[in-house]
């Protein structure tokens, strides 16, 4: 078994998955809301890039627009709809499911039920010996790493980041300290949506766009978040890395159908053994 393609493959898929799951995870840890429409936010990011390419905007420009557009949509959703669910996170799941349904079917209508491809900003592959590595997928890994670093810096070094972390740890105390949890929640939701939009934009040259492209990510992202536990940012990353990594790695050794299931079985087993998740509080 060739090591380089294996490692590259795991990193490449893991990177995209981490972007998606992180967005969901931050929102879930902060507000207890599991956004069933998260997959569709990814879809909207992909759709933005596709739409812009149809109007002769190069895909890299589209990919810069995607997180901005989807972040904006997320903000809009949060201000109008999501904020009503903070009191009943359980109902939030259903409300966001309805939103996701509407979005998914809307895009399906716009796409005409077809699958379309978008050209990658970097076409072709690097050759190292007799191993070929896709240029664009390498770029995605690099971009993801940079975005993760930026998010971390945002949380740790900036004032807004401090407010976010405070609201995450103890909303009541944060409010008592004069932090507007309302604004923090809005910011967080927008950020999570922007991450999803970015992931969608980055992945569309690799996986092509279709109305159902977000659905497989959704369930696995939930798993990642549950695995990650209550430790907020680090927890979501750990969970996403675990689920994304094993989803990419297992098919190298066993049949893909079985690998798919095994990821879930392992995740549920881990959660039974360690209900608080891989990283527990105290890690923020």
């Amino acid at each position, binding site marked *: 078994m060739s090591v380089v393609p294996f490692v590259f493959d795991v990193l490449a898929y893991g990177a995209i998955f981490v972007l998606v799951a992180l967005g969901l995870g931050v929102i879930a840890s902060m507000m*207890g809301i*599991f956004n069933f429409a998260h997959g569709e936010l990814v879809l909207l990011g992909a759709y933005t890039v596709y739409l812009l390419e149809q109007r002769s905007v190069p895909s890299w420009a589209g990919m810069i627009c995607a997180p901005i557009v989807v972040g904006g949509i997320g903000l809009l959703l949060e201000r109008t709809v999501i904020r009503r669910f903070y009191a009943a*996170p359980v*109902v939030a799941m259903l409300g966001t*499911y309805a939103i996701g349904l509407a979005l998914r079917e809307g895009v399906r209508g716009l796409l005409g039920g077809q699958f379309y491809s978008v050209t990658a900003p970097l076409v072709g592959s690097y050759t190292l010996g007799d191993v070929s590595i896709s240029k664009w997928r390498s770029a995605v890994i690099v971009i993801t790493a940079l975005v993760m670093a930026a998010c971390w810096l945002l949380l740790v070094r900036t004032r807004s980041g401090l407010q976010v972390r405070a609201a995450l740890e103890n909303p009541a105390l944060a409010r008592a300290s004069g932090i507007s949890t309302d604004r923090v929640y809005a910011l967080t939701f927008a950020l999570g949506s922007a991450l999803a939009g970015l992931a969608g934009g980055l992945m569309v040259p690799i996986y092509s766009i279709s109305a159902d492209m977000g659905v497989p990510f959704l369930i696995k992202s939930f798993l990642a978040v549950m695995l990650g536990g209550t430790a907020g940012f680090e927890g979501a990353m750990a969970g996403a890395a675990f689920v994304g990594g094993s989803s990419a790695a297992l098919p190298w050794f066993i049949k893909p159908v079985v690998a798919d299931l095994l990821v879930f*079985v392992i995740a549920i087993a881990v959660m039974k053994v360690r209900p608080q998740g891989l990283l527990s509080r105290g890690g923020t």
Partner: protein
Amino acid sequence: MIRSASSADTSGRQRRAIPWIEALLLAAFAVLPVLVDDFWVLFATRVLIVGLLALSFDLVWGYAGILSFGQALFFGMAGYSCALLATKLEITSILVLLPAAVVVGFLVALIMNFLILFGKRIPTPIFIALGTLTGSYVVERLARGWSYVGGQNGIPSLPRLTIGSYEIVEGRVFYYAALAILLLVYVGLRWLSRSQFGLVLAGIRLREPRMAFFGYRVQSYKAVAFALGGMIAGLSGCLYAFHEGYVGPGQLGPVLSTQAVLYVLFGGVGTLVGALLGVGIVDLFSYVLSQQWETGWPIVLGLLLLVVVMFRPKGLIGFLVPERERVGSFGSRSLIGKRQPPVGATDPLRP
């Protein structure tokens, strides 16, 4: 001890609406086949059968407080089991298949109980929701990939259910059979919700720690309710498979599971009859909608459901039934309005 549920009408002059709604619905369902043509009889039969599924969800959530996003798991597994019995072993008697479906539902619920409800720590509602959703998703994927049960295609061409040598043909005969079964289950659930068991469930749903302090084994009660829900969903699944004449992975998966949730939410949680209303109205509405707008009607449906969830989380029945009458509430509390602390906050029972 908790006082009996009939004290819910201590509100004085207020008349009870639910019995009227139930009576009206029963009368409507009883005479329906005589008034409409074949197509609508089939439509209505489906509503009755899926209504059973919705009832099972109302039981586990509205009464026991378990948010199960995986009711279709029992539905589909029972459907597949009965389909296999019918096609591989040529058993078509309804007297064998329906009990088999109930048993399958029970066993699967037992397994889910071990996986999700029981364990070192009490599972959070989110964990239960996602756990059941995952269970539904995983089993659907398995069914899609396993050629013995037909893979993506499922098992087609199911024979009809029989009693002795008499075939239960879909149409008026099947309709009344389904109605009879639904009635039986409904009455059973009504009785259960007023019984001691039902009262304990109500207590658990409102103040779980307090019930635990009283000495009730909370998880056991929940498990029993969950198992019961599984049995009813299984029954529904078998009927559905034979009415449609085929069983497929779609009958197992998260789409149908979430639909059951939406039906009940739409109709109104914790009232039993709300579940039936939800199924009837949503299905009817979807039919009408799809006639107007061929490609885009799911969008409208999604938006409509969103509106209901946002503005009327108590469902349609909230328009007809006062808060006090919902069996899911005693006094001024109800399940939906309860403020739940965000996941990150400290809580004595959470790890």
